[in-house]
């Protein structure tokens, strides 16, 4: 009951926002350019099978990139933390690369792997995920207090023991912060990758096509589906995080 009450203000804002869209903004902008939520809703319902299939298809593209990019990010961070000289030499480039609008490379990965090949979307989503996961993981691995390491050395621990029992667990909150950002980037990568060409069953392609045919309600419905999958993806990672960090103080 208490939790429901805590959510009430947010729900109220949501309802008010929808109402304002339906009866104020949409009529002002014109129903053609800004379809009403009711119209988007009914369009979604009529096309739900196509849209949800497309959403699932693009989600799989995003997931592939997320898994590849995040795994590589963690592996590289571990290597950089272990071999600090190599890390120090390469990290400035990783940080610089994370500031580059990598999404601009989407047409190139499409050209490399072929627009219909899911690998082209994995590539762009993966590269997008790689940098935040790398940077966050490395920060977590090296920000362990010196005394925590000294303590392990006093037990004659090897570097491997120190990594397994101290560095990795204490880096977990940082790793999950990186993974959460990566879910969002992976969805963006997959959808924008679709924009530059992809299978007709892909959500990005659906959005692109419907907007170019001026079918705005269908375009909006597809965007809502994209948001739904994105949020669900994010929440999945949050759930895993909650489980993995159940003993750690809430921040």
């Amino acid at each position, binding site marked *: 009951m208490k939790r429901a009450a805590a959510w009430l203000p947010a729900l109220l804002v949501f309802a008010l926002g929808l109402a304002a869209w339906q009866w104020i903004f949409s009529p002002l902008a014109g129903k053609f350019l800004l379809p009403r939520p009711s119209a988007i809703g009914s369009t979604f319902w009529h096309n739900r099978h196509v849209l949800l299939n497309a959403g699932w298809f693009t989600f799989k593209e995003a997931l592939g990139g997320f898994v590849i990019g995040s795994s590589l990010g963690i592996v590289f961070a571990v290597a950089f933390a272990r071999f600090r000289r190599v890390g120090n030499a390469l990290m400035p480039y990783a940080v610089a690369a994370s500031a580059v609008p990598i999404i601009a490379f989407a047409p190139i990965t499409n050209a490399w792997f072929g627009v219909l090949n899911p690998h082209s979307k994995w590539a762009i989503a993966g590269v997008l995920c790689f940098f935040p996961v790398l940077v966050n993981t490395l920060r977590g691995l090296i920000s362990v*207090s010196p*005394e*925590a390491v*000294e*303590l392990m*050395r*006093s*037990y*004659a*621990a090897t570097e491997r*023991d120190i990594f397994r*029992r*101290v560095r990795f*667990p*204490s880096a*977990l909150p940082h790793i999950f912060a990186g993974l959460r950002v990566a879910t969002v980037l992976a969805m963006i990568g997959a959808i924008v990758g679709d924009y530059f060409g992809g299978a007709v069953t892909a959500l990005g392609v659906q959005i692109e096509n419907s907007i170019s045919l001026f079918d705005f309600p269908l375009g909006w419905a597809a965007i809502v589906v994209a948001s739904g999958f994105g949020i669900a993806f994010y929440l999945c990672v949050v759930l895993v995080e909650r489980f993995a*960090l159940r*003993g*750690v*103080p809430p921040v």
Partner: protein
Amino acid sequence: MSAPVDSVVTLEQISKQFAHGKTVALQGIDLSIERGEFVSLIGPSGCGKSTLLRIIGDLIEPSEGRVTVHGKSAHQARLDRDYGIVFQHAVLYDWRTVSKNISLPLEMLGWDRGRRAARIKEMLELVELTGFESHHPWQLSGGMQQRVAIARALSFSPALLLMDEPFGALDEMTRERLNMELLRIWDETGSTIVFVTHSIAEAVFLSTRVVVMSPRPGRVSEVLEIDLAQPRTAELREDPRYFELVTQVREALARGGADSAFEELAPEEGGE
């Protein structure tokens, strides 16, 4: 000079330089600590007392000199897990419960689950934390966290306990209570303790010997025997002899140049 049989720690001409010799942290330290002693290292900030403690524990290598722990090199002693260490901050691992924190060194030693559980129970009784097994460190007060750290350091029964200002971050009341508790544990376990502190009162109250160090470069300026009766009781803090000894340590610190050290404002490098 070879280490006497009953010597737990022997330091011979220990020196330590940081920053390629630009900072001399320690110079020519000779010290021998016998079995069962409680030795405090006291001195102004930056005198290298924490560095010296880490040299004994082979966590820092001396630039010159020889360290012997239990008749072997400090390095071998560390590999043999001959000492337990407690820092100013409890350094507990947040993701481990109190029990699991105490269990960590035992896991490293490869003890099986049953043996670990029995020892953890014993340790929790020793530091009076029975009932807090499954709490996480961040759910405990600072004093309780430090008791967990002490339990962890003692869990594998090392004969030597190194303590780096373990009560420095605690309030005065908690500190005095933990002083009593530490003395009881020292008495029960018969271990040798090397204790770094800033507090003159604490050093005198706890120790059998107080090693007074001079400001950088750190040297042993004086060693004072503390001849107060054993076991120490809380009433001792009002004993005239206790006050005399506190005064002696304070004067020894002043003679060592501790007063001028406060004006020097030397940059801190490489820890203490």
